């Protein structure tokens, strides 16, 4: 039995300490140990983006990050997106535009598009489509998702 690693990370603004088997992925830690089940396991090999989280400001697939790697890091997950005033504009726009059906890809899409809009508040539709190419949706055909992100972008601009 391999010894567990002690990890301290800032998850959604809170200092969290946990013990992690070296083989556990960040996704497994989030879901199984910390009970943050918003991030989804789709392919578990870095293809589908359902497990997207923001690690130290950078979008990653949490299924291909080891839990042990995030010691001292800042992790943002879907559970931390909602603010004190309620749903984030991206979450509202996804609801308004019916940009989800089964919902498995949705947390990943919201984290991916949040990472984009954090970095590039005036992203074009082409930017959005290219940026989100690593997030797969098998229900919507993507159009509603892209429209939701464009809507949220406009709302974020108004909120400034």
């Amino acid at each position, binding site marked *: *039995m391999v010894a567990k690693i002690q990890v301290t990370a800032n998850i959604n603004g809170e200092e969290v300490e946990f013990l992690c*088997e*070296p083989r556990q992925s960040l996704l497994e830690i989030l879901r199984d140990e910390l009970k943050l089940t918003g991030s989804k396991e789709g392919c578990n*090999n870095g293809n589908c983006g359902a497990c997207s989280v923001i690690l130290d400001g950078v979008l990653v*697939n949490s299924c291909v990050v080891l839990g042990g*790697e995030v010691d001292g890091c800042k992790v943002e997950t879907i559970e931390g997106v909602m603010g004190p005033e309620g749903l984030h504009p991206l979450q509202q726009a996804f609801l308004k535009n019916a940009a989800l059906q089964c919902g498995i890809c949705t947390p990943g899409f919201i984290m991916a598009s949040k990472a984009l809009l954090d970095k590039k508040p005036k992203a074009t539709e082409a930017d959005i489509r290219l940026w*989100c190419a690593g997030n797969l949706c098998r229900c919507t055909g993507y159009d509603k998702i892209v429209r939701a992100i464009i809507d949220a972008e406009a709302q974020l601009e108004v909120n400034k």
Partner: protein
Amino acid sequence: MQAFEYAAPKNLAEALVLLEQKGTNARIMSGGTDLIVQVRENRRDLELIVDGKKIPELMELSYDSSDGLTLGASVPCYRFYENEQIEKLYPGLVDAASLIGGTAIQNRASFGGNLCNSSPAADSIPALVAHSAVCLIAGSNGTRKVPVEDFCTGPGKNVLEPNELLVSFLIPPPAKNFGAHYLRFIPRNEMDIAVVGCGASLKLDDDKKTVKHARISLGAVAPTTLLVGEAAVELEGKQIDNGLIEKAAAVAKAAARPISDMRGTKEYRVHLAGVLTRRALQKSLERAKGV
């Protein structure tokens, strides 16, 4: 997933001690986009994963006009295209970095990892070869340098000894009138594995017509990335035009010795090798002329 240990050494010496102890049962990890998946799918048995991202030399990204670019083996792809200097001076590297996987993969995957994974279809390798990159390798007995084109020895195989690790790439500063390009063919617009990839670079004389130096490199047409020296010979010392580019492309095409697989037949890949060489040279020429 199989059980393994994880270590994140803070310097090269510590990492080398770990490799000396564990040999082939240990492996350096950068972004983990290949390694974690391979271990999870039991395609690789490991006792220890050594994270390279805390080792300063593996994360170095610096440019010096006399020595050129030092690109640490674990530097993720996104850091190249967020760097204006690299974008301007090493366009072939940026071409490759911006088409490996999607955003989240580019945020983790490194050229060092891509090279050590040693896939015949790796996107970074022909680009590195076009830019004449040299690998700096460290081992317990000291360091050595190996040109990128000599690093891989077969699919998944390379010159690294079990007690060695890839530290960085040393990439010479581009000369005046230099241009490079990497492109690949895939059946979709984004996010796929190269059916064929081609990296090219051209250095022109002051007349911006005569080729002083050329490099053409093909991926996914042989067990390892090819540096097609004879295609460069076809170009060097001559005035470049479309006819000459066609001749060099024909030579590159003749050098391709691919296999048929699910991504393409042998014949198709040979055809692509010619087409991509032509396009890579045309784009390199534009860039060399500063068009």
